[in-house]
């Protein structure tokens, strides 16, 4: 069983909104100083799902792949510390500002270079641009079936059983291999790496692939190939003036709040 997991480094999505800022001239996010990028939380769940499959199958090879600059290394080490077997960093100046389609094209090329692949996993969306597109498009480019927003995944009789989250419940799908599955938060928590895992990850040799290594035509990816152009990026922090209700203790304050609510109540 060969599993490929795509992981992306992102700004910590739980950072306080007040620390988030945008450079209006360049339409780029200004990363707060001293705040390292983290593995996109849904991608961490994809690593977790791969590990669960590996444990159930009593053996599988998990390759973690990221397309990113210098920050990629830490995110790959995190995946290896959790239990991934191999780590690949894809980086090339030609890949900068790639949209979801260029990204999927490059990652699909990486799948072909890896060669053996039964299952491709990634998060339901990256916690920066919140698109939820790349996994589905990789599947289309490779001609694989896909199931998005999974909360559970298992392998039986050479097929995948995927429990998918829908707006009002769950659906269980059966799909042949190879297939692409994206993971949602309902799966639970990603494991914390063990000390041994962290030591192992620190020693891990990370493979580095460029556009030339992947045989990707640089003219077909990156900013020039983007299907949508970012016209404007601005911070959005809806705020209201909050009237704080107080009293001599919590009880009295709560009584006053009840009055307020009865005034507002439609």
């Amino acid at each position, binding site marked *: 069983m060969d599993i490929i997991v795509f992981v992306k480094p992102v*700004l910590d*999505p*739980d950072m306080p*909104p007040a620390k*988030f800022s945008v450079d209006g001239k360049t339409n780029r*996010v200004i990363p707060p100083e001293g705040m390292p990028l983290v593995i996109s939380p849904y991608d961490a769940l994809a690593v977790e799902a791969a590990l669960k499959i590996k444990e159930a199958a009593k053996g599988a090879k998990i390759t973690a792949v990221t397309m990113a600059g210098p920050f990629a290394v830490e995110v790959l080490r995190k995946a290896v510390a959790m239990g991934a077997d191999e780590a690949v960093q894809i980086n090339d100046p030609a890949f900068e500002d790639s949209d979801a*389609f260029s990204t*999927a094209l490059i990652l699909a090329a990486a799948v072909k270079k890896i060669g053996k692949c039964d299952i491709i996993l990634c998060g339901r969306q990256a916690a*920066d641009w*919140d*698109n*939820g*597109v790349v996994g589905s*498009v990789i599947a*289309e*480019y490779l001609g694989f*079936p*896909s*199931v998005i*927003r999974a909360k559970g995944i298992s392998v039986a009789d050479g097929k995948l059983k995927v429990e998918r989250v*829908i707006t*009002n*419940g*769950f*659906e269980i*799908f*059966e*799909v042949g291999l190879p297939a692409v599955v994206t993971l949602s938060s*309902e799966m639970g928590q990603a494991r914390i790496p063990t000390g041994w895992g962290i030591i192992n990850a620190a020693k891990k040799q990370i493979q580095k692939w460029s556009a030339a290594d992947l045989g990707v035509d640089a003219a077909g990816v990156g900013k020039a190939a*983007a*299907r*949508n*152009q*970012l*016209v*404007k*990026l601005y911070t*959005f*922090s*809806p*705020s*209201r003036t*909050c*009237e*704080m*209700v107080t009293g001599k203790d*919590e*009880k009295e*304050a*709560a*009584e006053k*709040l*009840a*009055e*307020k*609510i*009865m005034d*507002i*109540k*439609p």
Partner: protein
Amino acid sequence: MADNRHILVIGEVEKEKLTSTSRELLGGAHRLAAQMGGTVNLLLMGPAVAAAEEGIHYGADKVYTSKDAMLSESNSDACTIMIDALCRKIQPVLCLFGQSDLGRDAAPRLAAKLNAGLCMDCVEVTFDAGNNRILQTRPVFGGKAMAVMATTGDRLQINTVRAKAIAPEEPKADRKGEVIPVTDAVDASLVKVKLVEAKKIETEGVKLEDAKIIVAGGGGLGGPEGFEMIAQLAKLMGGVVGATRVPVDENWVPLSMEIGQTGKIVSPDLYIAIGISGAAQHVTGIVNSKKIVAINRDPDANIFRMADVGLVADYKVAVPILIEKMKAGR
């Protein structure tokens, strides 16, 4: 942008009626078509065909209906194939989905097949006449920022649109339109993903999306018992209970209660947030609430920036008092 100004709306129905999101899409498409000089085309698949006339009342000029039995909302493979074929036939400049189960799944795949532009979870789609282009605005970074995107070249633009982001038109029963049955069948051999079992959670009473009063709890409630307490309050007030992502991920409450970026988008008259810190991913789902009341132990919680009325207190002290007061009335 190409000269062809057709807009295609992918319609969805619930109990033989267009969903509120589908009505909103038709309203938005109707106004855009008037500005750009184009037509509004609605596709209804499978059981959705029942709403063809309603689609015309809400703004469609042409309604394409395909009764193919495979075209259920759970069969994204079949729906993607059908929409792909229709797009190749009518060559729209813009295709609109709701940010629904179908939209999230089919829109990216369709864009891959059609070399189209794609923006997910849009809150605004406008025509920029000066530059002859369509602009779409979408929340990014968990709702902390907004991105305005333009389509490059003459390509088709596909968007999914967030619920309640755009207004529907008033339905007009005397509006005229054309219903065009699509007879092409979906090639069953191309459907690779097979549905084995569906577990739908049927919500009793008023749905969160339609509720006038919502009492919602977050991770600060500490467990399912907290939700039992706020459910009492909700019941007394004639409201509906909602939750943030943490209680759902922790299995304290079912997924159908989740409000926010990955859950439901709500716009009640009164939203009472209890033990909710106010993460951007949650706030993005409640910004259109008329009044927001927040109860949290932490005076620095972000939710107070978003609220109209706030109380710094332990919910275990405050909520029972609210319950008593609501019981007593005035």
